[in-house]
């Protein structure tokens, strides 16, 4: 907000329609401050990857402007290519070359040569814990190792802006946590700007300083994770009842709960009761008292700070998981998310 530096990435009103009339981008606008980590969050098909493809000069929009590292990606794609590193969804590493050979070739394409090149390759192998694996063919790597190599490949030429397109999709929870730590360390690098796309809510929450929630080719909400969650005003209080309430009892409970000023939006559905409270923990005794008075036995109570999932529901009008109609990669239950 207060930064005076020019943004590292600016996409203005990007529109892209694929053959068959599929509108991938419908006025996409994002601005990423230099040296920050920016998260594009949305379900599969929301337009995240298309945005990255345009910003990395791989695809061209029907209209709109894309500026990356001070260069126009449409008019001077060659200048943008020198300034960016890209870790795409698909690995792209050569499986019948060793990790080190992949790094060396990538470096040569950017004009690195001789001792400087080999030093850089070894330094990256060391940094990503691939020194031994560097001598082996990439096809023998585990998913996590391959992903670390992909990031190393993207960094060979010390780019100003690094694009990470769903860097942890398909990784097991352990490898995902390791990759998160890796990305957090990268974020500390001097001046490196990172644009991260993800469909994992906790990934954006944990790694990104600012998040844009994308739905149907547009940004529907943007801010820091806390700002976005803060707009929801209050904690989520969820109660599971021992017995099913009929529709009549449900309405009765909702009315009884809303009499207390600290509780809002109480909804009872079967055995589940959901409500919002400015101060969740201190609202719990009151909620329990009301339920006892009304004769509803309680099985369990949870209080949660609002999640990005709640934010997504509010802005996109759907639950995140329902909107995610893509390859069905499971959203990790808790790994790393519970701090």
């Amino acid at each position, binding site marked *: 907000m207060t930064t005076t530096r020019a943004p590292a990435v600016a996409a203005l009103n990007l529109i892209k329609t694929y*053959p068959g009339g599929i509108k991938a981008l419908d006025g996409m606008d994002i601005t990423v401050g230099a040296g920050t980590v920016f998260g594009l969050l949305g379900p599969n098909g929301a337009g995240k990857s298309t945005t990255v*493809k345009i910003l*990395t*000069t*791989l*695809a*061209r929009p029907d209209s709109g402007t894309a500026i990356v590292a001070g260069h126009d990606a449409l008019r001077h794609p*060659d200048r943008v*290519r*020198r300034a*960016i590193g*890209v870790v*795409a*969804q*698909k*690995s*792209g*590493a*050569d*499986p*019948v*070359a060793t990790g080190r*050979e992949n790094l060396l*070739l*990538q470096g*040569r*394409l*950017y*004009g690195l040569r001789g001792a400087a090149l080999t030093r850089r390759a070894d330094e990256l192998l060391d940094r990503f814990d691939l020194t031994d694996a560097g001598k082996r*063919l990439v096809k023998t790597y585990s998913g996590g190792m391959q992903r670390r190599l992909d990031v190393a*490949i993207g960094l060979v030429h010390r780019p100003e802006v690094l694009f990470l397109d769903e860097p942890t999709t398909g990784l097991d929870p352990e490898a995902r946590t390791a990759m998160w730590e890796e990305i957090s360390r990268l974020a500390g690098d001097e001046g490196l700007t990172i644009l991260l796309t993800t469909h994992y809510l906790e990934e954006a929450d944990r790694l990104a300083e600012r998040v844009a929630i994308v739905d149907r080719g547009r940004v529907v909400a943007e801010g820091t994770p806390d700002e976005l969650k803060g707009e929801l005003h209050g904690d989520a209080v969820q109660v599971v009842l021992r017995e099913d309430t009929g529709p009549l009892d449900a309405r009765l409970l909702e009315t009884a709960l809303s009499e207390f000023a600290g509780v809002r939006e109480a909804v009872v559905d079967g055995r589940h009761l959901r409500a919002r409270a400015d101060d969740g923990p201190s609202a719990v005794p009151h909620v329990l008292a009301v339920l006892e008075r009304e004769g509803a036995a309680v099985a369990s109570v949870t209080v949660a700070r609002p999640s990005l999932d709640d934010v997504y529901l509010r802005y996109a009008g759907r639950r995140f998981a329902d909107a995610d109609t893509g390859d069905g990669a499971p959203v990790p239950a808790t790994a790393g998310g519970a701090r």
Partner: protein
Amino acid sequence: MSTATLNHTWYMTQRQLTAILRQPAFLVITLVQPVIWLFLFGSLFRKVVELGGFGTTSYLDYLVPGVVVMSALSSSMWAGMGTLEEIERGTLDRFLVTPVSRAALMNANVVQQGISTALQSVVIVLLGKLGGADYPGGVTGLVILVIASILLGTVFGAFSNALGMLVRQRESIIGINTFLLLPLTFLSSAFMAVTLMPSWMRHIADFNPVNWALVAGRSAMAADPDWGSVLSRGGALLALAVAAVWLSTRTFRAYQKSV
């Protein structure tokens, strides 16, 4: 061509050649298959030379250029599979977001194909020699045979790459290759003297690039080379190779637009 393009072409070619050398099974098959062709066809058609029209009394002399050209055709036809794999794996996109010369990406396919075809052809010629084949045209004739097979490989390699980028389906490449390989081979003078072919086949063979490569090669390999045939068929092959590479460069641009 700029120095960057030349350098990048070399890096990309090197990458492809290393990948081939690291797949020993593939290497063995491409080298063993011509041996089988030489042995099988050599034994099967051995007596056919007695019918005349082959310009030699040993069928092996006639067969060697046939197997060289057929092998160049059959191995180059699969080039599109490699391209397809690189697209699916994301390797092509990975290169496209770097400053790599776009021309180098296409050049590398052609150069790698050429080197592979040349090596394969030389091995077949040496195996033929080992089996007792006679090459009256000497080294010049053999060099022209190898050049003709490289040009033919370039034609079909480029078509195969274009097909891979356009249809993006393995099945289509397999289907078309299986459909084309034998008719293209047998509608040429690869294994049978032109004078023994039915006249309708001879007319079709005149338009078959596989036959152009054979006529150019055999004309140069004769004791008394027919340079007119070498130049006309070789020139036609060269023109077709240029057209095929141009076409595959166009499909490459179309691919970039479709991303």
